[in-house]
C-alpha cells in the first residue's frame, strides 16, 4: 500500500485535488451524518423526544426525514428582501464552516493544508460566519431578522476574544501555531517525566479548555447563548425568513460548526488524532488518525450538546457581561500564569 502510494508521483494540483475531495468533502459529510445521527440520539435520550428513537430502524431515518422535509419546502424570498444578499448569506455561513475543515489534521499527512499558522487560520475563518449572519439579518427586510442579526454580530464579536485568548495559552505551551505541531507537542510531552500518556493540554490548560468551550457555545449561538436565534423571542432571528434548502444550509452549518469546533478543541486540548503509545509518524495513522480524532470530537460535541440541552438562555446584556467581565479577565490571567510557568519550567 505504502509502496504503491509513494511510487505515484502526483503533481501539486493533483494531490491537492485528491486531498480536497477526501478531506474537505468526504470527511465532513460522513462526520456530519454520523455526528448528526449521534447527536440526534443524544438529544432524543436527553429530552425524551420520540423521532430519533422511532423513525426507521433504531431511529436512523430521522435525518433523512428531516432532510426530505426541508428539500420539498417552497423556497420563499420576501418581497422586500435584497435578493442577492439574501441568497448568498447561507452560503457564506456554510463556507466559513467548511473552510475550518481545511486546517484540521486527521493525521500527520491527512490534512488539506498543513498551515504553519493553522490556529490563526482556523480562528480567522470561523469569524467569517458573522458576515453571513449579518447579511441574512439585514437582507431579510424583517424586524425580527434584523434584531437577530445585530444580536448575533454583537455576540460573536464579544466571544471571539475569549476564544482567541483561551487558545493563546495552548500556543504558548506548544510553542507553535501549527495544529499538527500542537498535536505533536502533546504527543511528545511528558507529565513530570512520565511520558507514556504524553501531555494532553487539557491537564495544564483546563481553564482555557472551559473558556474555549463556553466561547464555542456562543459562537454556535446555542443555548445558553442562543439569544440571536431565540425561538421564543425573536422567532429564529436571522433565520426567520429562510425556508427550504436555504434554511437547511443554516441548519447544516450549525451542526457542522459544532462538529469542527469540537474537532479544534480536541486537537488543541485532547491531543487530536494522536493515540497514546503510538508514535505520530507511524503509518497506522492513515486509518487510526481519523478514527481517534472522530472519537475525541464526539466526546467534545457531547459536552457541547449536553450543556445546550440543560441550560436556559442568557439575556443579551447578561451575555455580554459574562464575556467581558468573566471570560476575558480569566483568560488573560490564564495566559499570564501559563507564560510565567513556561519561563520557570
Amino acid at each position, binding site marked *: 500500500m505504502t509502496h504503491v502510494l509513494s511510487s505515484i508521483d502526483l503533481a501539486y494540483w493533483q494531490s491537492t485535488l485528491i486531498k480536497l475531495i477526501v478531506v474537505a468533502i468526504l470527511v465532513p459529510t460522513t462526520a456530519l451524518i454520523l455526528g448528526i445521527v449521534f447527536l440526534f440520539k443524544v438529544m432524543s435520550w436527553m429530552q425524551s423526544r420520540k423521532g430519533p428513537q422511532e423513525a426507521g430502524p433504531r431511529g436512523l431515518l430521522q435525518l433523512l426525514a428531516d432532510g426530505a422535509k426541508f428539500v420539498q419546502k417552497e423556497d420563499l424570498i420576501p418581497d422586500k428582501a435584497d435578493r442577492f444578499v439574501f441568497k448568498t448569506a447561507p452560503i457564506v455561513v456554510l463556507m466559513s464552516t467548511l473552510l475550518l475543515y481545511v486546517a484540521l489534521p486527521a493525521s500527520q499527512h491527512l490534512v488539506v493544508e498543513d498551515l504553519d499558522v493553522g490556529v490563526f487560520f482556523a480562528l480567522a475563518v470561523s469569524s467569517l460566519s458573522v458576515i453571513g449572519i449579518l447579511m441574512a439579518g439585514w437582507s431579510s427586510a424583517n424586524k425580527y431578522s434584523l434584531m437577530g442579526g445585530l444580536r448575533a454580530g454583537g455576540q460573536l464579536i464579544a466571544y471571539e476574544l475569549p476564544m482567541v485568548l483561551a487558545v493563546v495559552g495552548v500556543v504558548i505551551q506548544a510553542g507553535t501555531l501549527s495544529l499538527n505541531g500542537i498535536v505533536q507537542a502533546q504527543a511528545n510531552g511528558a507529565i513530570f517525566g512520565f511520558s507514556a500518556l504524553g501531555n494532553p493540554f487539557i491537564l495544564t490548560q483546563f481553564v482555557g479548555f472551559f473558556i474555549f468551550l463556553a466561547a464555542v457555545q456562543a459562537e454556535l449561538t446555542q*443555548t445558553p447563548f442562543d439569544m440571536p436565534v*431565540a425561538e*421564543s423571542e425573536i422567532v429564529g432571528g436571522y433565520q426567520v425568513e429562510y425556508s427550504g434548502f436555504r434554511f437547511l444550509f443554516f441548519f447544516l452549518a450549525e451542526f457542522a460548526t459544532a462538529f469542527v469546533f469540537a474537532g479544534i478543541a480536541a486537537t488543541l486540548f485532547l491531543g487530536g488524532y494522536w493515540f497514546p503509545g503510538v508514535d505520530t509518524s507511524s503509518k497506522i495513522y492513515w486509518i487510526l488518525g481519523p478514527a481517534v480524532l472522530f472519537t475525541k470530537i464526539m466526546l467534545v460535541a457531547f459536552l457541547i450538546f449536553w450543556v445546550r440541552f*440543560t441550560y*436556559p*438562555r442568557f439575556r443579551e446584556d447578561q451575555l455580554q457581561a459574562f464575556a467581558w467581565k468573566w471570560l476575558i479577565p480569566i483568560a488573560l490571567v490564564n495566559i499570564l500564569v501559563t507564560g510565567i510557568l513556561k519561563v520557570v519550567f
Partner: protein
Amino acid sequence: MTAVTDRDQLAALAARANDARANIEFEDDGMTLNIGPQHPATHGTLRIVAKIDGEQVVSAEPIAGYMHRGYEKLTEVRTYPQVTTLINRIDWLGSFANEVPFILAAEKLMGIEAPPRAQHIRTILFELSRLANISLFLGDLAIQLGGLTLGFYSFRDREFVLNQIEAVTGGRFHPNFDRIGGLKDDLPKGWIAETKVAMQKMRAFCDEADDLLFGNEIFQKRTRGIGVIPAEVAKSYGLSGPNARGSGIDWDLRRDNCPPGLAYDKVDWKVWTHPDGDAFARSWIRLQETREASKIVDQLLDTIPSGPIMAKVPRIIKVPEGEAWVATENPLGEMGYYIVSKGDLVPFRVKIRSASFNNVSIVPWVCRGVYIPDVITILASLYFILGDIDR
C-alpha cells in the same frame, strides 16, 4: 353604506393602507415591533404591539380578540347541560375546572347540592385539571426561557394526569363531565391506585423542574427582579390566582371562600405566597401549587365516601328565576360565572369572568422599560391561555 366594488375605490383603500404602513416604517423614535398574533411566545393569538428603543421596550400594548368566540352570547341559546360543552374550551388546558363554577352556580339557583361522593370526585378532577394546566406552565416557562428540555418533560409527564382524566371522563382535553347535581359517571375500577401512581410521578416531575430550572443560576438571573408587581398594583388590576399570591397577597378562593359543592374543607394543604412579586415568585408559586395539588388529590383519594354520584334532578332542567355568582380558584386564577335566569331552559345572560383577561391587562404597566427578552419572561410568568382571554 354600499359595498366596495368599484376598482378606484379599492385602489384608494390600498393606497391608504400603504400610507399607514409607510408611517410605521418611517417613524423616527424607535421601532414598533408586533409580537403576535402569530408568535411562539404568545402560544395563541395574542398580539402585543411593542414600541421599542433598541432592545428596550418603551410601551407594550396587548391586543386581544383574535380568537373571540362569543361564548357569553352562545350560552343564551343552549340549555344548561349543553353549556358545559362550550365552556370546556375557555381554558383548554384545565378544561374540567371551567365547568365547575358554572355548574355550582346553576346548582345554587336550583337549590340542589351534589352528594358527598360526587363532591369528592369533582374536587379530585378539579385538582387534576389544575395539575394538567400548571405542569404545562412549568414546561412552557422553560421553553420561553430557552430550556427546551423541561418542555418535553412536562409534555411527557402531563400525559399521566391526562390519562387519568380520560379514564374517568372519556376526554383528554374536554371532559364535559360535570352535571347539575353530580357527575355523569362513577370512577372506573382501579382508578384510585393508578391515580396515586400518577401523583407520585407528578411530584417527581416537580422535583425535576426544581432541579433543572428553579435551581439554575441562569434561570434565576432571568427571572429574579423581572416584572415586579407590588401587591397594591396587583389588586388594582384584578390579578388573581398564583399571580396575586406571587405578589404576596394571601388569598385563595379554595380556602377563603369556597362555594358549596367542593370538598376542600376536608383536606389539609398550604396556600403558598411569595413576597417578591417578580417573575420568579410567580413561577415558584406555581411549582409549589403543583405539589400541593398532588397532595390534595392524594388525601381526597383516601377519603372518598360511598354513595350515589347524582342527586335527584328533574329530567328536564329548568333553572328557577334569579341571579347567582359563583367563583372558584381555577388553575389560572379566579374564574366566575354570573348567571341570570328567567326560569327558562336556557340562561338569560351569562357573564364569564376568566382570570387570564385580567392577568394580561397588567402587561402595559409591567412591561414598561424592560428588555425584549424580559417581555417574554413576563408573559410566560403571567401565564395566560388565549381561550381564557378572549372566550
